[in-house]
């Protein structure tokens, strides 16, 4: 069995001369729920599309279940459930016809589980897909992806366009089901609370790079923010590595540092700040710090 279900090596993608992905390296181990975060147009969807072989990469390699993405066989695809951004379903089909098509094309189909999902989401089989609300389309897409009992589930911004209630319902009803069954999941979103609820490992894409790639708990421990007050004006350079963000105003300095450790603590104490206060950081704060244009590659392992 492959240890890593998803492997990305030095992945580069250019669109019309613009670098969208700049040397991404990523490994997602089996059983992991990986939350891929990034601002709009950060490259999350592009990366997922390359992973699924829908988009050619400019350079580098991407592997799903040990197979190179551009040559995924039917057998490998049959083990992967995919919910595309914007719920790319055939709009002109009736739900029943679309379900039949997916069932006929799938290698395995869990009818009982699918019927349970359809009943739970109250999806009408006789309506056209185009007549469904965005929330219903998302639920249908997820039901279709789950019905094949996938080893790997790739969800590309599945709650996009849904209102708060529908999003909460989607997450509560669907993501909990996914978690119970111990699958490997790659979950992309720019809604941090969604990812925080389900992911056990996160990656943050910014400026074409994966600036954070570690366990959710670890990221909070590794990225620290301090407010430092110095007796005289704050020094311009603290000689610390992996500074994500630094703001100086007279005697005060607010600094965000990645991979905080004793050495960095000792280095900071050399400058003898008269007061040093650690500012608590939520995932949202970390995300904002990391996706600022000046942010550097930080917690990658």
């Amino acid at each position, binding site marked *: 069995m492959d240890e890593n279900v998803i492997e990305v090596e030095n992945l580069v993608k250019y669109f019309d001369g613009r670098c969208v992905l700049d040397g991404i390296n990523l490994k997602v181990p089996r059983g992991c729920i990986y939350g891929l975060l990034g601002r709009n147009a950060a490259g999350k969807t592009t990366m997922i599309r390359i992973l*699924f072989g*829908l988009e050619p990469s400019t350079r580098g390699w991407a592997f799903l279940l040990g197979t190179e993405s551009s040559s995924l066989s039917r057998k490998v695809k049959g083990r992967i459930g995919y919910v595309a951004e914007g719920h790319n379903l055939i709009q002109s089909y009736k739900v029943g016809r679309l379900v039949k098509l997916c069932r006929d*094309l799938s290698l395995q189909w869990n009818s009982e589980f699918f019927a349970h999902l359809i009943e739970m989401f109250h999806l009408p089989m006789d309506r056209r897909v185009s007549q469904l609300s965005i929330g219903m389309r998302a639920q249908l897409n997820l039901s279709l992806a789950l019905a094949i009992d996938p080893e790997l589930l790739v969800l590309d911004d599945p709650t996009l366009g849904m209102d708060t209630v529908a999003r909460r319902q989607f997450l509560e009803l669907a993501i909990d089901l996914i978690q119970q069954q111990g699958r490997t999941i790659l979950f992309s979103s720019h809604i941090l609370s969604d990812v925080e609820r389900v992911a056990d490992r996160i990656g943050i894409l910014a400026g074409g790079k994966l600036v954070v790639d570690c366990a959710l708990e670890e990221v909070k421990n590794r990225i620290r923010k301090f407010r430092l007050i110095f007796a005289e004006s704050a020094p311009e350079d603290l000689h610390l590595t992996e500074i994500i963000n630094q703001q100086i105003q007279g005697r005060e300095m607010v600094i965000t540092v990645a991979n905080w450790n004793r050495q960095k603590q000792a280095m900071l104490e050399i400058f003898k700040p008269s007061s040093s206060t650690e500012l608590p950081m939520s995932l949202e704060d970390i995300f904002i710090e990391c996706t600022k244009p000046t942010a550097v590659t930080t917690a990658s392992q």
Partner: protein
Amino acid sequence: MFTLIKREIEDHLAFFLGAIIATAILIVPLVSAVLNYDPPHNMPVYAIGLLIPVIIVVVIGLPAMGASQMYTDRNRRISAFLSGLPVTRSQILVARIVTGVLAILIVLVPLTITGKVLRSLLLPPIPIYPGLIADMSVTAFLMALACYCLGLQTGWTSSKPTPTLAGLALTFVLIPLIIVKGFGLHTTVILVLFTVASLVCTWQKFKSTAL
């Protein structure tokens, strides 16, 4: 594969109905002309008069079918959806081509059978070389396939009407080719090369384009 072919047929049923109607329109005047054939005189004019527009409709209809299949796919992102299922791009394209071949056969098979039956049963024993109907059928099949493949190619590579129409107009080059060269090996080789080139180009584009 069967599911994919079935999906293509259901989504492009209008073309199949058109093919059946075109076949009927071709067979009726053909039979009528043979039945009314009076050997010292020429064939009834209406038979030829009906045949020409129907042949033009077939020559336009097949590339239109290919272009429609590919254009609808791109427009509705059908391949993007299907690629999320246990289906490869090659399977999608092969299913599409098989559908086109079926549409061609719907027209050609009844026509060939009718031709064979009429020749053996009704026509007086006039000197026709024995392989004529087979040669005609093979040439017609290859010409129709070439037209269809050109439609696939233009449908996938172009969104604008002008290059699409220009591509479809190319199919009319094939008719003079047959008129000039006649049926036989030369025409077959040219049509096969035309079809293969068009298919390779479509396959390469279809495999490498972002869905």
